[in-house]
């Protein structure tokens, strides 16, 4: 058996052992998400526009992650709506920035890996860069949206008559706790994986100026920043969606 299979089985076993049914479903959603990611690349390689593919696949990935991860429908629905809104806003930010900064595709550092490859493949790499940036942030957006929506729905359950303003303050204060630790997840997640590149930069004595203008470095930092912006935006947007739903519920009850 290959290493990936065994590691996968170990993870499945542990998730089921500790998480029970929730754990097994979570593992399933991971597999689905992998399938969707691969599907996204294949669709783009068949010539579908990267933006459209990202939008469709992103919508499905968010649905799988949020509805499989959270049993409480009261929290999952607003979390999903908020995550979708943030995804669309992020696309509107990412698209112009990627066109401005031109950090798409490959750089001289990739030369060795590109040997013998045809680069003129007729697919816009700016579109691919936008797709990469959006898809890599979705996990963080979904996680933050769930956490805030779950926290707020717990509060609503205990104080059904809470005012919208109070709810907003609570949402922001939950957000404050989440953002600190999520920053770390993102920082280590992105930069831990790029240790080799940083050793390359230092070993070949790149100047500070070359590093901050380097295509790969910029592309990587942008992904972290977009993910941060996404998570920051999730806080007020989720709170806002929960507040509106709550108000509608209250009217309905009257």
């Amino acid at each position, binding site marked *: 058996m290959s*290493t*990936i299979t*065994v*590691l996968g089985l*170990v*993870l499945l076993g542990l*998730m089921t052992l*500790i*998480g029970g049914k929730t*754990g097994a479903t*979570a*593992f399933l959603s*991971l597999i689905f*998400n*992998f399938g969707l990611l691969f599907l996204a690349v*294949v669709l783009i390689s068949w010539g579908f526009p990267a933006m459209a593919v990202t939008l469709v696949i992103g919508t499905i990935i968010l649905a799988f*992650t*949020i509805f499989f*991860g*959270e049993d409480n429908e009261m929290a999952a629905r607003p979390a999903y709506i908020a995550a979708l809104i943030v995804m669309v806003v992020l696309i509107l930010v990412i698209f112009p920035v990627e066109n401005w*900064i*031109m950090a798409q*595709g*490959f750089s001289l550092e990739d030369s060795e*890996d590109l040997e013998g*490859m*045809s*680069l*003129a*493949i*007729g697919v*816009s*790499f700016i579109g*691919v860069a936008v797709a990469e940036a959006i*898809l890599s942030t979705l*996990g963080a957006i979904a*996680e933050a949206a*769930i956490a805030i929506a779950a926290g707020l729905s717990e509060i609503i359950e205990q104080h059904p008559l809470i005012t919208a303003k109070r709810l907003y303050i609570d949402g922001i204060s939950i957000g404050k706790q989440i*953002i*600190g*630790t999520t*920053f770390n997840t993102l*920082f*280590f*997640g992105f*930069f*831990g*994986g790029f240790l*080799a590149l940083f*050793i*390359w930069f*230092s070993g070949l004595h790149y100047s500070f*100026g070359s590093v901050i*203008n380097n295509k790969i470095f910029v592309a990587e*930092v942008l*992904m972290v*920043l977009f*993910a*941060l912006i996404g998570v*920051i935006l999730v806080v007020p947007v989720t709170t806002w969606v929960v507040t509106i739903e709550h108000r509608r519920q209250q009217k309905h009850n009257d």
Partner: protein
Amino acid sequence: MKQWIRQHWQLSLTIVVVVLGLIGVGLTRFNAGLYQQTVAQVTQVRAQSQSSTTDEFENKDMTYTQVVTVKVLNKAHRGRIYHIKNTYTRSGAMDQSYRVGSQVFLRIPSDQDSAVTIQGLKRDTALAFVVWLAFALLLLIMRFSGLMAFLSVGLNALLFYAAIQIDLMTNGGHIYLLFGVLAVVFAALTLWLVLGFSRQMVVTFGATVAGTGLAVIISLIVFSVTHERGVTYESMQYVTQVPRPLFLVETILGSLGAVMDESTDIVASLFQLKTERPDIESKQVFKSGIKIGRSIMGPLINVLFLIFMADTFAMTLLYLRNGNNWGYTFTMNMSLGMVQSLISGIGIVLAIPVASWLASRLMPREVLPR
């Protein structure tokens, strides 16, 4: 009233910081003097020719040629104007078109004018703008409490830099020891900044280190049992040292943040629980911890999974369009990200019982209500 003044003061300070930041972003347009490389600004662009190309895999693309007029902004050739031919493809994998107003790096050979080449785009203004955007949003929504997060990221980046220097000095000889120690220091520093030095911090720290450590041990066992079949170290990018240790260290560092994130959540909730119900039994504390962890782990594993996998998009696409089949494309591009995601996942899951158990054991018998 006092409250109002304080809030008002905070808001105005936020706006001042945000505006100053934007001015700073604008100033990067005029920082050519700080660069060692020659910087020039594009003043005029003229399209020259275009042709369509087809490669051996039937990929159709367009190749364009433009003549770019640039004015040098710094160094010995300051003020000189050059006309440079730039060829680019529509897909833009390795090349790009230049627009009027962009700043670029030039290479000016000492002998003659004709061989001046553009070395790349100056991206610092755009990058500074996005940094500013993230910072401004954080300040506007979170006010100054969001800054602690930035501080910890900044300190960690410094440590990271220092460790890389040490690694280079020792030629990667002690990479496990070096980055193992670094991971522990990262965890301690970050948690100290987030939680302050307290019993809660110690428990969280213990859970983080133990969870990550156990995941590494399990992975190494799996590696030796399966003889690392399908782990294609040769496909690792940007490698200048022995790839295997580098890969393992990357994996540990990559998952560290997520494991900390989760342990923090679980331990904080359990301490809260103990404050609300001081008479709760440790067995019950353990059970609650598992229950909290259950709902966090799925989304958290997903966060890392998407980060690790999305990174490989461009290369995967290139492989597919260059006539490689799905299996080979996956093996060469995505399999390492997959192994990384799985090891991180194992760490994230294992941290749940460890954090719950440590919390149930090490929690003070009586937590005084705050």
